[in-house]
């Protein structure tokens, strides 16, 4: 059983990220929009901390729910890819899976989210993609 993580919510402008732990599963719900000029200053430290916490707490699955995320600019996409790249670099003992819940009725999600699976097929799964 994973220990309780110390990952807090993040709220900035129109963006909200809310984590909720359920035993060995960590749910991360993103909603709003990411369209700031330098999202990396906000998001990279958040994903880095989350990655460290997940590994040290022994969590084996992170569900990333982006269905409420209406728009993300390309700089925001890079932040997400950076986190996935970090996650796929872990040893088998530290490794965790990322299940991405996305919405096929939102254009950018329909096209770009499936590429995360191609970037890291060993750790990324696409979940419930119903509109």
């Amino acid at each position, binding site marked *: 059983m994973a220990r309780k993580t110390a990952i807090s919510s993040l709220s900035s402008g129109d963006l909200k990220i809310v984590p909720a732990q359920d035993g060995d599963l960590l749910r991360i719900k993103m909603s709003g*929009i990411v*369209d*700031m*000029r330098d999202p*990396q200053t906000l998001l990279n430290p958040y994903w880095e901390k989350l990655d460290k916490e997940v590994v040290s707490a022994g969590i084996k699955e992170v569900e990333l729910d982006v269905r409420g995320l209406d*728009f993300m*600019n*390309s*700089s925001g*996409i*890079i932040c997400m*890819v*950076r986190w*996935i*790249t970090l996650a796929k670099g872990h040893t088998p003992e530290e490794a965790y899976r990322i299940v991405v819940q996305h919405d096929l009725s*939102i*254009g*950018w999600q329909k*096209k*770009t989210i499936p*590429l995360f699976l*191609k*970037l890291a097929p060993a750790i990324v799964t696409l979940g419930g993609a119903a509109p």
Partner: protein
Amino acid sequence: MKDTLPSTDYIELRFGPRWTYIGCVRKFIASFFLIGLADKERAEQISVAASELLENAIKYSSGDDSSLHISIRKYDKEVDVCVRNPAEPRQISLLRREFAMITSGDAEDIYLKRMEEAAKTADQSRLGLVRIIYETEARLHLEVLENEVALHAIFPVE
């Protein structure tokens, strides 16, 4: 491009390079073309392309006091999103090279490669242009004028 052809729906905006205006423009364009095209997916794609072209223009235009110009024209069978910004010769040269690279192969392969590279570096990625090609399937066209560049994203429409 095609300035002499009749355009049935037309938007033209000129504004200072202020980042927070981009979101307003994106939402307005999405609403405008949702009405004009009655196609939610295409309207969304046009607004994403406009947003990425404007972000690109603000990041890479010369001078903070320069103005950006966006025009969107709907013709019989296509919509042309065009963003113009002042640029210095060095920036124009970089953009030409970038443009040649992202239009020279399979869009998905280039987009994936760019994502991986961008995740490993703190440098500017210019992911936005290849994102437009991959996500929206628009045709990009680069127009170089004197001390100015115009980037077009051209969408087929019914």
